[in-house]
């Protein structure tokens, strides 16, 4: 029999208490009414159950399957069906395990979930994945410091061609200006000679690299897989790459802002960077004071810790002692932060009787005659002390160089958006290389303060992500966090009014604009969060399986009892990333919640379109609850500001409610953590109770 997209099979499982809680025969009748082939099995995921599933599906040539069993988070491999669209109806976790068995309301909920799935399967489209015509497998590395060098080397070793752009006249960056390195674990006695040149030579000699020295970028346009790069040189050199590693490095914190610490006295006060250079050329005086956290860990300057300065200052203390055996060194710290094996080095420095270390807060640094006086409070020796020395070295912190120099030809700006402290990242704990521009991966000190060893590793890791992005684009797949997703947003341009909401609200800058302001979509930049679907007032944006129509159809498929039946209906939009698993977890602990809710998972809370809310209210739902991930500074939204947008859009929704003469409480937005299974249960139950006090939606009977 030929395959027909309008043929749908409803496969029901009665195992895992589903059959005890729900009358699946009645679900079968419902399927018959809807003209859908239907069968049930006591263990659909068993070998026999799967055999039956495949036989039934091919028997009627169905390409779409409503699989009413457990959560899509369970048995994913077993229920994946090649070439067919499987919609999982979560009767187990969202009905049988959380509602009273064999009750009328439980049954109604199950029936509605099946109706919603069938409506969705009828409303969705088929669309081949987005495959760009030509994909470049080359990677651009911006910045030839230690992170960039390691990125290039890793990419070359893995078989990719690299374009390396460096603004300076040589590769190696800050690493080449270092006098000596901290000892490694095996040779703790000696400071090591830097060996960056070996790596520079290796990269320069590689046949598959093109190094552009003294070069900056004029522009980068296009999308991952096909980014067109133009250099700012006489020839306006152009080439294409698939993705980019951004390793633009750091700069020292502006010491001009540290005049209270004596900066400006050129002979008496130097920064760490200046002193690193100074010792390789000059003799050192007899008394040197190092002031740590000069600018770092300070709300007025850099509120973060710059991570590298403690070890660097200890190392410089040894320079002083090596160059001038008579020298006395003072180190004033807040905490000595020599992490990991660097503790050995700290111990080694402490063994030197001529190096004095004390905790303390610097009050001032002044020149008095030939010497510098450092006033310190709260030291370990005394509450107030003054140290006289010939030179003061300020351990200034790291400031990320930023990424404006990429000159992205993107509607939303030329660099990678920084979120906190201008570091170019988006989810630095779990997914440290992700930025808010698809195909651009930050490496080294541009994304966090770190030392040389760490920057080197970072370059390699970022290159891994860069080549992965290229391989994903070649397969038509989305990258993190919806890795493997083959759908992409499409715009029905005839109805677009150039309002620019989609271009402005996309967290990843996927949309550009024509001069007129018409959005230009770049599907390979897209992470498939659907925030543009939620943003569009004209409802012109949709994915094949997630569109205005498909969700509207689900909303309208629910049967709304009339107001006298006292069976309210609450539509719950849940973010599928955290809220949905939290509901599954609630079910695994059998935490009961109201059978009056009808749950629709969404790609991100930010993908909820206003029209679904008004659809639901006019259809007669009594209330709408939206549950997403935590917004704010420590956001947990996988798409950065999806849930934040929902909060902002909430204000507009209140206007909608007013025009419909409805109470503001009919729409509620809540945030939950993935571990909040108790909280999400309470949210749902409390909301349903609160709605009962407001009474039924007056549109119900219309």
């Amino acid at each position, binding site marked *: 029999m030929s395959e027909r997209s309008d043929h749908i099979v409803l496969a029901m499982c009665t195992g*895992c208490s589903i059959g005890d809680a729900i009358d699946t025969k009645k679900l079968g009748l419902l399927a018959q009414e809807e003209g859908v082939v239907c069968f049930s099995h006591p263990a659909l995921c*068993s070998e026999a159950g799967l055999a039956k599933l495949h036989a039934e599906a091919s028997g009627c040539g169905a390409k779409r399957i409503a699989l009413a069993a457990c959560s899509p988070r369970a048995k994913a491999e077993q229920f994946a069906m090649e070439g067919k669209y499987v919609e999982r109806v979560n009767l187990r976790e969202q009905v049988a395990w959380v509602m009273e068995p064999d009750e009328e309301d439980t049954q109604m909920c199950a029936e509605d979930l099946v109706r919603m799935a069938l409506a969705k399967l009828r409303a969705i489209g088929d669309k081949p994945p987005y495959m760009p015509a030509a994909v470049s497998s080359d990677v651009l590395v911006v910045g030839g410091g230690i992170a960039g060098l390691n990125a290039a080397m890793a990419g070359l070793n893995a*078989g990719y061609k690299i374009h390396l752009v460096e603004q300076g006249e040589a590769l190696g960056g800050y690493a080449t200006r270092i006098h000596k390195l901290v000892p490694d674990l095996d040779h703790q006695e000696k400071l090591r000679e830097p060996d960056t040149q070996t790596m520079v030579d290796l990269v320069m000699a590689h046949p598959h690299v093109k190094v552009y020295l003294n070069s900056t970028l004029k522009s980068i346009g296009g999308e991952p897989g096909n980014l067109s790069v133009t250099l700012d040189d006489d020839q306006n050199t152009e080439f294409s790459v698939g993705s980019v590693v951004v390793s633009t490095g750091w700069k020292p914190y502006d010491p001009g802002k540290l005049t209270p610490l004596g900066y400006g006295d050129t002979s008496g006060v130097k920064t760490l960077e200046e002193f690193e250079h100074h010792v390789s050329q000059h003799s050192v005086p007899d008394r040197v004071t190092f002031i740590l956290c000069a600018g770092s860990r300070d709300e007025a300057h850099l509120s973060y810790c710059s991570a590298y300065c403690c070890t660097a200052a200890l190392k410089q203390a040894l320079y002083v002692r090596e160059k001038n055996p008579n020298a006395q060194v003072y180190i004033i710290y807040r905490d000595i932060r020599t992490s990991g094996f660097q503790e*050995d080095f700290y111990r080694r420095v402490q063994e030197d009787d001529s190096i004095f270390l004390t905790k303390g807060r610097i009050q001032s640094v002044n020149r008095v005659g030939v010497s510098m006086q450092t006033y310190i409070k709260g030291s370990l020796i005394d509450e107030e002390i003054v140290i006289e020395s010939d030179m003061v070295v300020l351990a200034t912190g790291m400031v990320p160089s930023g990424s404006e120099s990429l000159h992205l030809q993107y509607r939303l700006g030329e660099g990678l958006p920084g979120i906190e402290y201008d570091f170019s990242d988006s989810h630095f704990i779990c997914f440290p290389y992700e930025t808010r521009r698809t195909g651009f991966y930050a490496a080294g000190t541009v994304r966090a303060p770190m030392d040389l060893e760490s920057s080197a590793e970072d370059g390699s890791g970022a290159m891994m992500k860069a080549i992965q992005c290229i*391989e994903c684009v070649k397969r038509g797949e989305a990258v993190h966090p919806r890795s493997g997703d083959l759908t992409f947003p499409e715009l029905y341009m005839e109805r677009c009014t150039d309002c620019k909401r989609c271009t402005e609200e996309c967290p990843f800058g996927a949309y550009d604009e024509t001069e007129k302001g018409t959005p230009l979509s770049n599907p390979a930049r897209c992470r498939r969060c659907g925030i543009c679907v939620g943003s569009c007032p004209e409802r012109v944006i949709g994915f094949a399986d997630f569109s205005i129509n498909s969700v509207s159809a689900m909303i309208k498929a629910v049967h709304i009892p009339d107001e006298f039946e006292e069976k309210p209906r609450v539509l719950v939009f849940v973010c599928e990333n955290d809220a949905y698993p939290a509901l599954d977890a609630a079910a695994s602990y059998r935490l009961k919640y109201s059978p009056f809710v009808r749950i629709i998972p969404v790609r991100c809370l930010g993908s909820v379109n206003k029209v679904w809310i008004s659809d639901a209210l006019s259809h007669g739902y009594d209330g709408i609850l939206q549950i997403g991930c935590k917004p704010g500074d420590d956001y947990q939204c996988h798409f950065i500001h999806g849930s934040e947008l929902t909060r902002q859009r909430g204000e507009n929704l209140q206007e909608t409610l007013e025009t419909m003469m409805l109470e503001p409480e009919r729409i509620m937005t809540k945030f939950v953590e993935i571990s909040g299974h108790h909280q999400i249960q309470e949210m749902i139950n409390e909301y349903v109770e609160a709605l009962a006090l407001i009474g039924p939606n007056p549109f119900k009977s219309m």
Partner: protein
Amino acid sequence: MNFPTLVIGGGISGITAAVELAETGREVVLIEKAPYLGGHVSGFHNYFPKLCPPACGLEINYRRIRSNPRITYYTGAEVTSICGAEGDFTASVSIEPRLINNNCTACGKCAEVCPVERNSVPGGAKVQKAAYINGGLSFPLKYTIDQEVCLRESCRRCMDVCAFDAIQLDADSAVVELHVRRVIVATGWHSYPAELIANYRYSEEPDVLTNVEFEHLMAAAHRENRKLGRPSDGALPGRIAFVQCAGSRDLNHLPYCSVVCCSASVKHALTLAEAYPEIETEIFYIDLRLTGRNEKLLRKAEQTDKITFTKGKVGRIGKGDEGGRIILEVEDIMAGKKQRNSFDLVVLATGLVPNPLIPLLSANEYGFCNVNQVEGIYPAASCKRPMDVSASVKDATAAAIKSMQRSDE
């Protein structure tokens, strides 16, 4: 032959290496010795510095594994031997029986009838049965049976009740031989044994815990929606002490700094301050090492009047008194005097020790894995040196690309 890449260790680092490789198009075999993936972090309450649940990032990674046919994983699996060379290593992997097969639907009937209990988190947490699952976000989403305590054939209650033929009480351990091209080693770490720090009375006092145990205590309380209870009597502790560098930075124990413990303790103190405003915490430290942006946590903590920082190494932990209070003796460096303070619960910030390495690899003087030892074998994350989650993920991603070579194409 185009063999897959083997990733040893299914914690956050191994998972990361595996999914990054698979999404780049490589075949990967991931093996984990525990019955579930996720390693340490899957049992943690929250991450620093965002105080967010680890399950959030893990779930994304599990989804990536579920939907990627290029990853094969084994749980309860350990490498017993490995030989060969880059391009064709042969790894013998022994697989402990789960006693529950893939038919399991995680319905939970087996645990309902199981008469045997297994060790669980102290402090009033629900006791796990021999048939158990680590909560609804576990991966794989199926039960396991603790073979140490299961009564097997003499009980069989789970077999009688399982509707899916999922129970296999007679299952035996198996050995699988894997041919792999290259190997990523992400075998991770464990806590320094606190009982070795004799003056801290860890073995004697039930209310002296390690930071990892405290993490589990917090996680269990949240999971079960109840108040935190201390192990001895289940009561909510009023005063909690955090003892930093319990073993770390100490030539008698761990000469190195374990990197994560400062941030972890400040995270605990802040989490407590948010959830239990009545609890007072005091953190005893040598240096507060919240590097990079973790500094933010410290600033937040300093603004909270429920958290006190005292510079000084705890010398001795005394016997609990009749009220169940534990005496801490510490030299307060800034005040320049000895202090004796009593607490209801003491958390030792014990450090990180590398897990035993796989055969073929040698360790440095501290037991961590030396890098660049064997062509084709790449150690990653905390088996190399102590590091936090973010650094581990980054290092694992870097190890992944090292296992991809031009010559493979």
